[in-house]
């Protein structure tokens, strides 16, 4: 399993440039919002957490559709499926998701405090947002894995995978953003939505790989 993780991380770094595309897209999102909101720094600070979350959510979608496609195209997927007795397929998928998250999403999480500064957010809000991103974004990747597995036999699943995934990621977004706000605004609680967010991630850490495994198994032909 360690080997699979390493291979996927290497591939991501070497071939796709995944990390940077994500960050650049993230940057683009953050760069453009102030135009809309205008020079109102207060307002900017208020929607900062939301914009960071939306940016991270959308950036995660980039490249997610090829999560299994690439392995299918060169025949690796067959062998991964055949090894299901040794390595439970769901676990294999979990590891692949982790690798994707490490390469494509973790850099965003690390960069988010910096962007929070750009958005004039308070330190507490920045910290809370980074923390919620760290805890919440894996859920997006895990949900995405289901979409990627369902659409694996479509050579250009890109948009379709996003369409399938996005509605399902909305709860993650809601709780992520509300936890970030909870850290600064008084009546709103932080812990409750944060715990729900963690629970969602754990829930999809089980459901996502299992559902994706079922989809992949039926896709083999």
């Amino acid at each position, binding site marked *: 399993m360690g080997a699979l993780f390493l291979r996927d991380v290497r591939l991501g770094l070497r071939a796709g440039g995944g990390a940077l595309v994500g960050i650049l897209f993230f940057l683009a999102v953050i760069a453009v919002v102030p135009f809309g909101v205008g020079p109102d720094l207060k307002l900017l600070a208020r929607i900062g957490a939301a914009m960071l979350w939306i940016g991270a959510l959308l950036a995660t979608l980039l490249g997610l559709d090829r999560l299994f496609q690439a392995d299918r195209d*060169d025949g690796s997927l067959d062998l991964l499926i055949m090894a299901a007795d040794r390595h439970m397929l769901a676990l294999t998928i979990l590891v692949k998701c982790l690798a994707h998250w490490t390469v494509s999403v973790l850099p965003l999480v690390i960069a988010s405090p910096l962007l929070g500064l750009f958005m004039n957010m308070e330190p507490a809000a920045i910290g809370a947002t980074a923390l919620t991103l760290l805890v919440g974004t894996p859920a997006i990747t895990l949900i995405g894995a289901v979409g990627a597995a369902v659409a694996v036999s479509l050579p250009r699943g890109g948009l379709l995978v996003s369409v399938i995934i996005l509605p399902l990621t909305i709860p993650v977004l809601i709780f992520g953003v509300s936890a970030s706000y909870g850290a600064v605004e008084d009546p709103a609680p932080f812990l409750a939505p944060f715990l729900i967010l963690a629970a969602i991630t754990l829930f999809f850490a089980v459901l996502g790989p299992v559902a994706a495994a079922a989809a992949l198994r039926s896709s083999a032909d």
Partner: protein
Amino acid sequence: MRLIAENLGGERGGELLFSGLHFAVSSGEALMVTGPNGSGKSTLLRIIAGLLVQAEGMLRLEGTPDAFEGLAAAAHYLGHLNAMKPVLSVDENLHFWQSFNGRGQYSIAEALEYVSLGEIGHLPFGYLSTGQKRRVSIARLLVSDRPVWLLDEPTAGLDKASETQFTGLMRGHLTSGGIIVAATHLPLGLEGSNELALGAAS
């Protein structure tokens, strides 16, 4: 160990390609699946590998060694595609499959030596010629142990020397008690192997 198929049928896109196949392959034996293009050779191999579900009939491996549970776990599958990543080096590719499938009799260097690619391990897989790629794929069979080898046109693209070498490898696998099922258009040079001819199709 014995691979047994009873009344096996395979379909593609709702259409039965073959049906009522009976065969049994014991340790040390090889089965050559032959037939014209589109007759279902690859389909049969993928059914044995557990990648497709048979349309009818039964398939089982009797006397599986303890280390493996089930047919798919005990089988190496060498399909048309090489299952290697072009941007990773040959060593990295083989190393991954070795760690993933479990360490075998040979080390990576030895396996590459067996397919006469000793000095090529550091090159990205994508830089190899067709035949060299295929040989790296064959080396994958050596770096982890599996008693059953399922080979789909294994010698496509190999030159004469590599072909004989590969025949030697297959012989070695058979004498050490393995099973080989190979789909092929070209004779693989294994004397005394059984042949299963699939029906004519377009």
